[in-house]
């Protein structure tokens, strides 16, 4: 799969448009568009300043600290890192989890999926979906959603709040929980906590069903646009259970080629490097993972996350979500399964699955058990893989005889999706920006495509007032031809151009 717009033939002759940073995406991203004199898009690249220093930060620390430390990598999905690191450390201590430990971890994970998907859909993406990609930025935000559809917004807030409560009760704290440890967990649920969560779970399932209906309705209403928007084909990869079911906590790796044929299935992820390699490119800080068998990142890149998981599993092991999966697959002869905006639909199906799974676990007596930790034969290497809200998350550690981590490698969901995001914005740039005068609404189309993947850019630092958006068009000789800014209060303006030398 070559990238038509990745590298232009003569970039020195093109205008350059930079969108920096990408708004409503964690961290700092930057999109550059090289246009020719007729405003035709000639080159598009998504640059992400991904923080790679974190792996060095971990090295030298005792292994038992790592599941807690890694939560500081991300302010949105710390639980995913907590659990992926714990799974790796289970191998270091040679443990096979007790039923209580595994179910408490699963409960924590489904709480994370529920709250993260609710936040993404109701508060990051619904403004675009409900008001239109090019709507006035003054209303295209969560407050606009609250004003226009207060009940939907309230449900979003309460779904997220419920997920956070599940995390708090299983991890011990709302932030920087310590619940999951090498070999198990350090607490189970009390009878009181179980009763508290049971009280509201049926409402959460009902609201999750409603959320699926919202995105389904939007697809039906905007079929042509939604199907075509940023559409591209890709190889896919994710975890599945031994029987082919969706399993967001544990399983083997399944990879399919873009034509739907299987590349590998139920692959033991503890040797992921035998099937996945990472490439680097001079223009991006982020690596480009690819399937080893395909030889290079140009041919072997792939897509992970909700859309992949829902379409790639054989079934979802909770009835309501599985019924929705079947409807999603059948919708318009399967067209939504290849649509970039299909991520949102798949995400809501997963949210429903998470709510149903929480309900099932709350009825399982193992979650109040007391057998919390297992031990076994000490090892020096551990690989933990989990399906985080945004996709497959790999944690890989080596530990020395002094119990110190001597090597860490993390491949986060956003890295897996690096090339897929680039592909989506290239398609959108061609569809909506080619030959057009640049406006905030048009540029938001690029951001809408990126938000489908919900990239997580480890932005946990965020001093007040530092999220401007800047767009700049630079001519062939390096001259600034046009400039658009959106400040931290959302005000768009075209400031004066700098004096040219």
């Amino acid at each position, binding site marked *: 799969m070559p990238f038509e717009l990745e590298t232009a033939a003569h970039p020195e002759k093109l205008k350059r448009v930079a969108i920096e940073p990408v708004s409503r995406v964690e961290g700092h991203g930057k999109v550059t568009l090289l246009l020719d004199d007729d405003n035709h898009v000639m080159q598009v690249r998504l640059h992400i300043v991904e923080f790679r220093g974190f792996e060095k930060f971990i090295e030298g620390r005792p292994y038992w600290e790592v599941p807690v430390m890694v939560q*500081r990598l991300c302010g*949105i999905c710390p639980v995913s890192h907590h659990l992926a690191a714990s799974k790796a450390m289970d191998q270091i201590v040679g443990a096979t989890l007790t039923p209580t430990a595994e179910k408490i971890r699963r409960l924590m994970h489904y709480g994370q999926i529920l709250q993260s998907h609710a936040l993404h859909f109701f508060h990051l993406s619904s403004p675009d979906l409900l008001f239109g990609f090019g709507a006035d930025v003054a209303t295209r*935000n*969560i407050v606009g959603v609250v004003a226009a559809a207060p009940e939907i917004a309230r449900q979003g807030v309460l779904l997220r709040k419920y997920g956070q409560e599940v995390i708090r009760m299983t991890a011990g704290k709302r*932030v920087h929980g310590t619940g999951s440890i090498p070999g198990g967990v350090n607490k189970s649920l009390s009878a009181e906590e179980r009763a508290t969560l049971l009280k509201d779970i049926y409402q959460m399932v009902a609201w999750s069903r409603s959320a699926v209906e919202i995105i389904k309705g939007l697809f039906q209403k905007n079929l042509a646009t939604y199907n075509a928007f940023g559409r591209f084909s890709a190889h896919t990869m994710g975890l599945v259970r031994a029987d082919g079911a969706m399993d967001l906590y544990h399983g083997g790796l399944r990879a399919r080629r873009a034509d739907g044929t299987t590349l590998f299935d139920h692959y033991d992820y503890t040797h992921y490097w035998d099937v996945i390699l990472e490439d680097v490119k001079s223009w991006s800080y982020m690596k480009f993972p690819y399937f080893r068998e395909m030889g290079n990142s140009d041919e072997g890149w792939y897509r992970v996350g909700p859309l992949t998981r829902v379409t790639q599993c054989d079934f979802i092991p909770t009835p309501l979500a599985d019924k929705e999966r079947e409807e999603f697959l059948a919708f318009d002869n399967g067209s939504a399964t290849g649509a970039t905006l299909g991520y949102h639909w798949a995400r809501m199906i997963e949210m429903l699955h998470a709510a149903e799974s929480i309900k099932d676990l709350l009825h399982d007596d193992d979650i109040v058990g007391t057998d919390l930790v297992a031990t076994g034969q000490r090892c020096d290497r551990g690989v933990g893989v989990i399906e985080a809200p945004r996709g497959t998350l790999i944690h890989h550690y080596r530990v020395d005889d002094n119990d110190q981590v001597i090597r860490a490698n993390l491949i986060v969901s956003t890295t897996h999706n690096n090339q897929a995001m680039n592909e989506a914005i290239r398609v959108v740039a061609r569809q909506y920006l080619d030959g057009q005068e640049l406006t905030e609404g048009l540029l938001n189309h690029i951001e809408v495509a990126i938000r489908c993947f919900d990239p997580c850019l480890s932005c*946990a630092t965020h001093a007040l007032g530092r999220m401007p958006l800047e767009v700049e068009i630079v001519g062939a000789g390096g001259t600034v031809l046009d400039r658009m800014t959106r400040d*931290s209060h959302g*005000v768009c303006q075209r400031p004066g151009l700098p004096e040219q030398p």
Partner: protein
Amino acid sequence: MSVAPILIFGWGNPSRGDDALGPLFVERIEALGLAGVECQTDFQLQVEHALDLENRHRILFVDASIEAPAPFAVTALEASRDASFSTHAMTPEAVMQVYVELHDEPPAPCTLLAICGERFELGEPLSPGAAAHLDAALAWARQWLVAP
């Protein structure tokens, strides 16, 4: 369920240098064990924090700031719509606005304490300057806490 009349909410990443100012401030206040004061921290402000504002008398938001004058700045907040809704992280004004929309009334009086930070790199300790700013902010907070 009754909640403490005063909420102190600090946010930031404790592992990123002076970004830890918000959580550290809250930690120091919490250590005082004051009755009627609830302390909370998080990485970032988010929509559900609007629910934490319910049934309060006063709320103090605390964050590190690269723009605040040293040692700190204090601002009375009003709910408002701003572009922070377009990021994963929200401003306190935006959280207040979500509260207004959900409850159809403003939350209790909210104050922002922005403590001046200097360095925000991962793994860095609190800078000496930020540590001094933190002490000054805590001295101010003792007065704020006993105000009627």
